[in-house]
């Protein structure tokens, strides 16, 4: 059965390996240069300010390739579900060859188990290798990006560490399941992509923030932690944002509260006039905000939780994958013919 599964899978496997090899080659050629540039720049910059300037410049310089590589890792699981998962069973159903396979001395449970096992492991392997290669390649850019693009935040979190393996396994089994239900390859591909995209959007918005209880803190605004003071226009009150105590944290909410602890949108200070006029400097403005009793309430996940979240989310996708897999076995025994 493994022989047959491999024989049927080998063209797709070759295509996947070729794509992975191409990615690896590009990363291997550019990676060491990137790391050297960053290391020498950081060694030469001297002052903190100069180093920050360098990091910002370095990140801007490599922003395009950083985003391209990010997109590759984000898209990879969807591609796996699309081209490896969805056709796995529909191809057999469309050609009727499942009835040839089931007429051999192999139960259909074993037939499905081997197909799912071999191709599913290949999916996870590809995603794991791609994530590993990209995490290695991008580590200087990630460091340069710093608080502008912390790895705890959605998108970057999804493309680093071990979660891509969980995504690939889930996307693959999702493709197989949809294929079994829809029974036709092209509609199955379309439904797979739609469902997977919905799950990937829903996850960071609706589920991930609650995997662990976030840290809540209310801080006094200082010139050091003030991140932004914005007004919609001249004569409109200011809105505030501050930096979390942990600059690489994933901030879920960043709101202003008044003396009695109520959430307010704005503080009664205006650009151009009063303590926050441009010529006064930030200290005066911040002191006035403090005197009026406004503080900033932060809800965030500190960057130290990166791996805890990686494991939790991979585990969650593992459970989803196992659930869909179990459904596939039930369906093939009871309903499919």
């Amino acid at each position, binding site marked *: *059965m493994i*022989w*047959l599964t491999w*024989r*049927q899978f080998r*063209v797709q496997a070759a295509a996947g390996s070729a794509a992975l090899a191409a990615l690896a080659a590009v990363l291997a050629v550019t990676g060491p240069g990137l790391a050297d540039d960053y290391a020498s720049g950081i060694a030469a910059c001297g002052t903190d300010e100069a180093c920050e300037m360098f990091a910002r410049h370095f990140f801007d310089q490599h922003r395009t390739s950083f985003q391209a590589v990010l997109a590759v890792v984000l898209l990879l699981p969807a591609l796996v579900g699309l081209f490896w998962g969805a056709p796995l069973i529909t191809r057999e159903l469309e*050609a*009727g*060859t499942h*009835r*040839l*396979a*089931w*007429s*051999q*001395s*192999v*139960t259909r449970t*074993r037939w499905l188990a081997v197909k799912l096992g071999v191709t599913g492991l290949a999916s996870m392997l590809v995603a794991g290798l791609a994530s590993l290669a990209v995490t290695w390649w991008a580590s200087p850019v990630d460091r340069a990006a710093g608080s502008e693009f912390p790895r705890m935040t959605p998108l970057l979190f999804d493309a680093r560490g071990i979660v891509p393996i969980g995504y690939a396994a889930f996307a693959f089994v999702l493709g197989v399941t949809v294929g079994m239900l829809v029974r036709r390859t092209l509609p199955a591909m379309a439904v797979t992509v739609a469902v997977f995209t919905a799950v990937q959007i829903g996850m960071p918005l609706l589920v991930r923030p609650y995997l662990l209880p976030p840290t809540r803190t209310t801080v006094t605004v200082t010139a050091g932690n003030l991140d932004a003071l914005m007004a919609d226009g001249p004569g409109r009150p200011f809105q505030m944002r501050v930096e979390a105590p942990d600059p690489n944290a994933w901030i879920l909410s960043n709101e202003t509260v008044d003396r009695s602890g109520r959430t307010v949108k704005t503080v009664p200070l205006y650009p151009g006039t009063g303590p926050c006029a441009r010529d006064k400097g930030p200290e005066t403005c911040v002191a006035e905000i403090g005197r009026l009793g406004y503080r900033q309430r932060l809800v965030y996940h500190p960057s130290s939780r990166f791996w805890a979240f990686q494991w939790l989310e991979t585990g969650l996708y593992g459970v989803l994958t196992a659930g869909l897999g179990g459904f596939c076995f039930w369906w093939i025994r*009871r309903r499919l*013919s």
Partner: protein
Amino acid sequence: MTAIMQARGLGKRYGRRWALTDCTLDIPAGHVVGLVGPNGAGKTTLLSIAAGHIAPTTGEIEVVGARPGGDPGHLARVGFVAQETPVYAGLTVAEHLELGARLNPGWDGALARDRIARLGLEPSRRAGRLSGGQRAQLALTLGIAKRPELLILDEPVAALDPLARRDFMRGLMEAAAEQELSVLLSSHLVSDLERTCDYLVVLTASRIRVAGEVEELLATHHRLTGPRRDPARLPAGQHVVSASHTDRQSTLIVRTEDPIHDPAWTVSALSLEDLVLAYMSEPAETGPRRVLEVQR
């Protein structure tokens, strides 16, 4: 010998439609069994249940002594060539034999290679580039070389031209004779089965109409022609399968164990095709359906 197939009250429903209703059968081993009926009668449903590919909604079935489709040991004892004789288009002929060898413990590699050589199939040719007849032969080779006790074939020759049809049936008959294989095959054409089957099952509109050895069936069915008369007034023991009347004359096809003595009738023998057609055109009856079985 044990029965190759025993079914009791077997039924299969798809949504609200019954594809097979109240099917009771007892087919002894050692026969080439023809399952005949019009398209959509439920032949594929019955054979798919027998092969274990679908589960029945009601009733019991045993194939070569056990419920179909359960364990690999039982799968090895029943071969199945599905409708349209599917093969993997991307795999070569040799790879199909490899597939058979790897997936079947009782695989007869010499037999398979020999058959492929005799058929003149190139082992390196992709199955997708074979003709319909060659594809059917490849599927048949996989079914035979697995060395089952019973080989089930669902409309294996429906898509073939007459020459390929004859070659296929010849190959099947040779294998059945050489390996003492029981064969159960379906067709919507009696002519496909006439020369090869010694046991016949007629299935129309999801129900079994008649089942029995061909010789017995031919010996117990007669065409009666005579002056017009009400079929209900025939002696007990004469079951009317079909009746047609003109103003003066009645033509009946009856099944009976007894000789026909009434001098008013001209009695003539039926061909197998006539017999099957009579059952296929049998009007839908009211009340509970009789399942006819010819006693051995």
